[in-house]
């Protein structure tokens, strides 16, 4: 159309222009031609114009020229037309270009409107269209962007439920590419079950036209069912639903959250039910809203719905309202967690201790809605702790009492302290100790506390068997009452209505009898527990032992004083005698003087000395009576006199009354006496004679007198023999000082110039100095051989100096011997006093006291060890208890602490038991009950008893018996020994060890050997094994009391047996015991 128009317009313009140009031009030409023609005709004939050739030629030439001219004119006209039509052409070109660009996607095309004609309208319309198209495209792009960037997958399905579109999120979630699922039925992406759900939903949608939301599992490309929440919406075209769009919300997270929630609910329930502690949830009205199985089980009823105080305390009111600490109340009050130990009353009425951790359950506003309580029954622990604290206190008191008892020998101190400590331990207000006065048969109160002296006087004497102390002293049984004033068992007592309520009285037992009672009282009622009673009994026993010890000590010190006095006296007499005997004077004088001295010492009324004459008669040699003739035959050889009898028996014969009975013939010279002692004298085998002391009264001779007389007899024999020798061989010098030589202590006699004149063999042995070197040397020069003897020489000097002034002196020092060993010694120097009181020399007695010092050291060491060994376990008990009480220890560690406290407490208790046992043995209180023992039965019993520890060590225990089936012994004690040995074998061996017990009879002995293949004992430890508290190399690895073997050794010793140990380090140990076999009588 437009083209037609343009062409027509072009043609029109062309014609116009052609006409405009050609017309005038042609007219001009035509006019010119006509003019020319007219001119020509005027020149020629008229009418001859068309017949003129020149004219025709010109006309044709003109026409010929006119044609190209016209052509050019036409071109010019065309060009002019085109020029005037250019805008239209540009517009057209632009339109074409614009259309092409638009086709290529450029929607920003805007064309210039060049003409105001239809073409201009067209261009305007084009421009409007381009804008509208652009806007639409942007809108579409936006929509597409929404769809593609949508996080949730979507599908579009047609009415046949075939997928016609999906978005990239769909591909992302399920892995299906767009191309793969286009046209595919949605049911192909679902499993059977989900397909059913979907069909149902779709049917409903179609029926109701309502899109619903439902859950579906869509299979991903890899076949995994992905949970999604589908929300559908229909797509309309007009009124027609053409497709259904489904948005598939990824439901995996929600699903897992939901599952988690379910799981966690199950989990909470499982946890609540599986924790071993009770757990309850309480609301603000103190009602239990939830309780786990344990809580329900323990309460034996369904707790849910119950009031907590009703259910747990049997109380109608909340316990906080009664002033008790209530964790629930506390949590509701401040919203924080609270942990306390609480008392609950169980269904059977027993008090249970609960450790309660109460925590708040808060709502969104922070208000406490519920309280969760975790209840742990710690009754056992609380009781254990209380028991440990109590035991700890008891042990400390027992330890301090035993300390007092072992340290002090002052009865006052002991008894007041015992009363004080026991009152403190048992929270008593006072007490008293009564001792039995054997003569008056009365209980005398000697120590008291907590009562006035006046009141003490009114109860100071109680008859044996009367009132409570009297009854306890008779029966030996403990009496205790929680309230004496109401106790109907106590009919009458002086203290019944004195204000005293709690009262306890225990016997104080000595070695074999009751020596008193210990009583304690309180002004408030006090129930004495069996534990308290047993402690009191133990203290009674310990106190009794201590008292016996004091008495023994007092008796010993008296005896010691007496002995000391006797010894000094004896020593003085001996020195006097030896001085007399040693002097070279007439034997008769000596004899007379010696007899005189003897008579004096023994307060005898008469003494004589008879000697054998060659014919066997006993003749008088010397007598204390003046006028008796020496050489007179007193008894013929065949007469059975006291003296003859003593000589024939070769021993002293003491007779308390020689006239009683008629055993001996009595010479008229001595017929007036009663008591007599005949002392025979021998030199080697050779009888020398006999001296006899006679008393006017009847008399029993004491041991020490006999001993002294024996020494005298020896001295006199020697002197007599010597005098006889002198008598026969003149004055030949020979010192045969038998007595001095026979003394076990070193004796060194010096003269007035302090030159050594004699030493005995004991001196040689003690000092290592030979007699030849020592005699004749200045006394102190004798000990110059060692620089270490300076102190010894100073002490010896001091002692000699004092003795030189006439009195005996004593010093202690350490002597270094010739061989270099150091021996602790006491030096006793006694002056030899002559008749006129002059000092003729000094006798120095040097005694080796290393044994005494060693014994003393051992005793001290034992006391120190006891205190040391007690302190270590006490450290655990005291220190760890303190830390537990102060809350320094975490719960997980607290158990470990309690275990250590328990173990150390047990070790301490075992130590106390074993020490008491040893103390009983030491004090001779332990007596054996000899019975016939069936050895095999005993072994079986032991193996059974030890089965548990043996199993724990995976050990094998075997026993063999050879020729021994029965033996006599104390079964309990021997069992203890063997158990200790086997226990040691287990303790000091690796797991899986082998223990062999062999019992066999060898001659008159029963040999028991316990062999193990354990760690063995280092050689240097073996000699110390039975020392008390000795813990060898392995003591570092394993804990014990260090008393077991000591106890074994003592028990074996009491059976008159021996015990020894053989061991190789790394190989094993054999402990052997050999006990004499006793026949059953």
């Amino acid at each position, binding site marked *: 159309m437009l083209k037609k128009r343009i062409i027509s317009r072009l043609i029109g313009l062309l014609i116009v222009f052609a006409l405009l140009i050609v017309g005038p031009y042609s007219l001009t030409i035509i006019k010119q031609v006509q003019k020319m023609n007219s001119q020509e005709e005027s020149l020629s004939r008229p009418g001859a114009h068309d017949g003129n050739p020149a004219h025709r030629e010109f006309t044709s030439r003109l026409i010929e020229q006119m044609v190209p001219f016209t052509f050019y004119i036409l071109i010019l006209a065309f060009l002019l037309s085109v020029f005037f039509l250019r805008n239209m052409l540009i517009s057209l070109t632009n339109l074409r270009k614009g259309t092409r660009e638009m086709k290529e996607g450029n929607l920003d095309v805007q064309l210039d409107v060049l003409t105001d004609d239809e073409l201009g309208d067209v261009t305007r319309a084009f421009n409007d269209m381009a804008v509208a198209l652009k806007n639409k495209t942007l809108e579409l792009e936006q929509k597409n962007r929404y769809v593609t960037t949508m996080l949730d997958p979507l599908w579009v399905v047609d009415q046949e439920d075939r997928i016609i579109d999906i978005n990239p999120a769909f591909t992302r979630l399920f892995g299906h590419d767009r191309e793969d699922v286009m046209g595919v039925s949605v049911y192909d992406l679902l499993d059977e079950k989900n397909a059913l759900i979907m069909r149902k939903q779709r049917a409903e949608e179609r029926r109701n036209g309502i899109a619903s939301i439902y859950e579906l599992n869509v299979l991903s490309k890899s076949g995994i069912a992905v949970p999604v929440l589908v929300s559908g919406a229909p797509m309309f075209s007009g009124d027609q639903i053409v497709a259904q769009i489904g948005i598939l919300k990824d439901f995996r997270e929600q699903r897992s959250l939901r599952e988690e929630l379910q799981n966690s609910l199950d989990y909470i329930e499982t946890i609540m039910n599986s924790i071993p502690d009770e757990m309850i949830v309480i609301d603000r009205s103190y009602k239990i809203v939830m309780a786990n199985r344990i809580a329900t089980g323990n309460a034996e009823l369904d707790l849910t719905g119950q009031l907590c105080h009703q259910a747990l305390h049997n109380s109608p009111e909340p316990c906080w309202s009664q002033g008790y600490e209530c964790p629930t109340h506390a949590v509701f009050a401040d919203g924080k967690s609270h942990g306390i130990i609480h008392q609950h009353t169980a269904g059977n009425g027993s008090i249970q201790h609960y450790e309660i951790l109460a925590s708040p359950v808060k709502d969104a506003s922070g208000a406490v809605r519920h309280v969760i309580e975790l209840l742990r029954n710690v009754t056992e622990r609380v009781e254990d702790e209380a028991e440990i604290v109590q035991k700890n206190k008891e042990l400390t008191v027992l330890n301090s009492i035993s300390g007092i008892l072992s340290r002090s020998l002052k009865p006052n101190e002991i008894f007041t302290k015992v009363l004080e400590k026991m009152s403190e331990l048992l929270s008593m207000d006072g007490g008293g100790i009564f001792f039995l006065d054997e003569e008056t048969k009365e209980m005398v109160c000697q120590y008291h506390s907590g009562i006035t002296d006046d009141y003490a006087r009114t109860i100071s004497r109680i008859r044996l068997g009367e009132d409570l102390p009297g009854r306890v002293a008779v029966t030996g049984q403990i009496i205790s009452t929680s309230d004496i004033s109401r106790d109907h068992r106590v009919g009458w007592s002086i203290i019944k209505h004195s204000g005293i309520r709690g009262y306890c009285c225990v016997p104080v037992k000595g070695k074999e009898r009751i020596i008193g009672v210990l009583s304690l009282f309180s002004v408030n009622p006090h129930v004495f527990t069996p534990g308290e009673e047993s402690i009191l009994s133990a203290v009674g026993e310990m106190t009794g032992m201590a008292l016996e010890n004091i008495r023994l000590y007092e008796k010993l010190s008296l005896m010691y004083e007496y002995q000391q006095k006797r010894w000094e006296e004896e020593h003085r007499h001996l020195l006097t005698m030896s001085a007399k005997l040693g002097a070279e004077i007439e034997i008769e004088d000596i004899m007379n003087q010696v007899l005189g001295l003897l008579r004096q010492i023994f307060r005898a009324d008469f003494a004589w000395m008879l000697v054998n004459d060659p014919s066997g008669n006993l003749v008088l040699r010397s007598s204390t009576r003046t006028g008796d003739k020496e050489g007179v035959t007193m008894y013929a050889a065949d007469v059975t006199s006291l003296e003859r009898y003593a000589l024939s028996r070769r021993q002293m014969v003491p007779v308390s009354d020689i006239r009683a009975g008629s055993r001996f013939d009595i010479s008229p010279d001595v017929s007036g006496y009663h008591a007599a002692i005949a002392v025979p004298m021998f030199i080697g085998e050779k009888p020398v004679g006999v001296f006899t002391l006679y008393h006017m009264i009847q008399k029993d001779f004491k041991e020490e007198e006999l001993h002294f007389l024996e020494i005298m007899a020896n001295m006199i024999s020697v002197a007599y023999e010597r005098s006889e020798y002198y008598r026969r061989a003149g004055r030949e010098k020979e010192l045969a000082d038998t007595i001095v030589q026979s003394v076990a202590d070193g004796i060194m006699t010096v003269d007035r110039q302090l030159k050594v004149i004699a030493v005995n063999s004991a001196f040689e042995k003690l000092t290592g100095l030979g007699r030849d070197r020592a005699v004749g040397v200045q006394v102190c020069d004798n000990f110059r051989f060692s620089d270490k003897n300076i102190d010894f020489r100073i002490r010896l000097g001091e002692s000699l100096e004092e003795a030189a002034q006439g009195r005996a002196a004593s010093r202690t020092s350490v002597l270094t011997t010739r061989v270099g060993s150091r021996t602790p010694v006491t030096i006793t120097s006694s002056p030899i006093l002559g008749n006129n009181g002059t000092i003729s020399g000094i006798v120095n007695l040097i005694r080796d006291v290393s044994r005494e010092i060693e014994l003393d050291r051992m005793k001290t060491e034992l006391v*120190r060890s006891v205190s040391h060994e007690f302190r*270590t376990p*006490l450290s*655990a008990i005291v*220190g*760890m208890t*303190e830390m537990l009480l102060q809350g320094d220890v975490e719960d997980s560690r607290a158990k470990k602490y309690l275990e250590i406290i328990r173990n150390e407490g047990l070790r301490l208790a075992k130590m106390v038991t074993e020490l008491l046992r040893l103390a009983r043995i030491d004090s001779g209180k332990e007596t054996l009950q000899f019975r016939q023992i069936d050895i095999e039965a005993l072994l079986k019993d032991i193996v059974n008893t030890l089965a548990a520890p043996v199993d724990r060590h995976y050990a094998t225990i075997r026993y063999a018996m050879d020729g021994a089936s029965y033996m006599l012994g104390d079964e309990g004690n021997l069992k203890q020994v063997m158990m200790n040995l086997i226990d040691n074998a287990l303790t000091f061996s690796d797991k899986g060890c082998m223990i062999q017990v062999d019992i066999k009879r060898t001659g008159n002995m029963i040999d028991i050997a316990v062999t193990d293949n354990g760690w063995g004992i280092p050689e240097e430890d073996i000699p110390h094994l039975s020392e008390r508290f000795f813990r060898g190399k392995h003591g*570092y690895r394993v804990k014990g009391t260090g008393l077991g073997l000591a106890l074994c050794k003592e028990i074996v010793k009491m059976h008159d047996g021996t015990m020894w140990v053989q061991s190789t380090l790394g190989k094993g140990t054999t402990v052997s015991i050999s006990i004499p076999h006793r026949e059953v009588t």
Partner: protein
Amino acid sequence: MSKVIVVDDEPFILMMIEDKLKTARIDVVTVRESRHALERIRNERPDLIILDWMMPGLSGIDLCRLIKADPDLRDIPIFMLTAKGQDTDEEQGLQCGVSRYITKPFSPKSLLEMVQETVGNEQL
């Protein structure tokens, strides 16, 4: 943080002291075998040494003498913590340069106080 070395052959004593001192944020090094103690002391350079007396092998008092003989270590204060409770023992300990002589059983609380008094209480 202060550092204390404790030498004792009894494991539970070590445990107790360690637990107690740790409550006051004191660093504790425990040594059970006294023969290794000197080397540890040289390496650790503690502010205080707590020694048991009766130990197998090298006794606490001998160890104390060794420490006091070392010019680098002699200024470190030493506590003697021992079951030997006799006056003569204490005298001997103090003569060797022990700053405190504590007899077992002891109160961990008082021990901590003594330690803090000696090494300074860093919590304050």
